[in-house]
């Protein structure tokens, strides 16, 4: 089962307990995340032309240099965290990377000096904080049930982990802000500054794919 999804395993990096593995699946995600991180580092942000209500002229929204620096740094942190989440083969480590991506997402939009954007990012932050309970809780329960957190060891243990998998998926949904919680995140995309906002979207997509892989293998 495991080999059919992740493909060929090229090698592992044994950092003590925390094991990074290079399989065909994880290398693809890693490379995509790294390419987008470099793109975010090199490109300049977009300029938005906003139509005004009850007025003739349009307004040009420019991202100031101070704001740009913070948002670019947070976007790069987000990209590195996504790349790390692709490679790791430890369940708790993966949950930590997920939460780190959530924090970086809040950081990307928190530098925007707009009332509605900050409001949306506050709502998303609340959901991300609440979602740590099912995420880390399920990791702890899997550890209590099977005695290991390694994704290489978990498929070999014949224990039903259905409930833990369900709440892990719920925690992932809250942390990345997908469907049931999307309303809080949708407003965040309206902030000016294209490549940084793209990073929010890309990281959550890659993490969903990786979570599906993990839930299918363990």
């Amino acid at each position, binding site marked *: 089962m495991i080999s059919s999804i992740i493909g060929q395993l090229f090698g592992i990096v044994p950092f003590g307990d925390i094991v990074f593995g290079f399989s065909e699946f994880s290398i693809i995600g890693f490379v995509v995340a790294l390419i987008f991180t470099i793109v975010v580092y090199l490109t300049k942000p977009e300029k938005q032309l906003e139509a005004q209500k009850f007025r003739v002229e349009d307004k040009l929204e420019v991202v100031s240099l101070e704001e740009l620096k913070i948002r670019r740094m947070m976007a790069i942190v987000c990209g590195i965290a996504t790349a790390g989440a692709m490679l790791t083969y430890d369940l708790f480590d993966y949950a930590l990377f997920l939460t780190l991506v959530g924090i970086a997402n809040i950081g990307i939009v928190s530098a925007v000096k707009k009332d509605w954007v900050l409001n949306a990012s506050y709502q998303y932050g609340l959901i991300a*904080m609440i979602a740590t*309970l099912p995420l880390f*809780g399920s990791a*702890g*329960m899997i550890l209590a049930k099977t005695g290991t957190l390694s994704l290489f060891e978990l498929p070999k243990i014949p224990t039903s982990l259905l409930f833990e998998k369900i709440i892990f998926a719920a925690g992932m949904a809250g942390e990345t802000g997908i469907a049931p919680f999307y309303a809080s995140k949708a407003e965040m995309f309206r902030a000016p500054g294209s490549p940084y906002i793209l990073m929010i979207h890309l990281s959550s997509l890659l993490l969903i794919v990786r979570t599906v892989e993990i839930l299918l293998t363990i």
Partner: protein
Amino acid sequence: MENIIYSLYHPTMIIGFSVGILSLLAIGFQKDDLHALILADVVECAMLVIIAGVGTDLAEALILPGLVVSLAELLAVSEVLITRKHIQSKNHDSKKFKLFEEFKLPLHTGELKYDIEMEVLKTSPKFFAIILIVYGAILSGFTGGAVIATGLLFYALSQRVLGLNISDDVKTLWEGMAGLSGVAWAFWIFGFLGFFLFPKYWLVCLLMSGLGLVIKVGSKLGLVGYIGEVK
């Protein structure tokens, strides 16, 4: 079932999840943003309870990153709240208070008519601060540093409550101690390395790292009371 830890696992899970669900209910009823944030932090504490339910050494190692991550999220969201508050109140300029300045005695705000200059208000902060600093110096290490910092903070904040300024001599001394903290840090690191490199001289290394840490922590934490005094 010989070990008591096994029997504690199920109650811990039930308590953790019920605290989480009750906090969710409370967040649902909440109208104030700040209260919702604090209740979300309660959910994260319930997360720590669930991890602690595993009850092994590994669980102890997992609680620390969980705590750090939850604190980072709390800081990020509160930073968002502060920025939003700042944007909303940009037009009206509100008066900014220093730490503990709002607890000023009525004596110094001029609301009280009678002149009640009490000697104990001036002497007791010094007394308590000296006792705490001496006790912290005896303790040494990280705990001693925290005790020293408590003494310094108590002195600075009580001076602020009384509406007095800290005298220049004390400020200079304080700044000098903070300047030492870099050297003290080096002492701590070398003392710590000494444990591994020269295990024979462990007592010297212990004293070196303990004294370095006490100066470092005491001066750095005590600086909190110093904030706002700098011109």
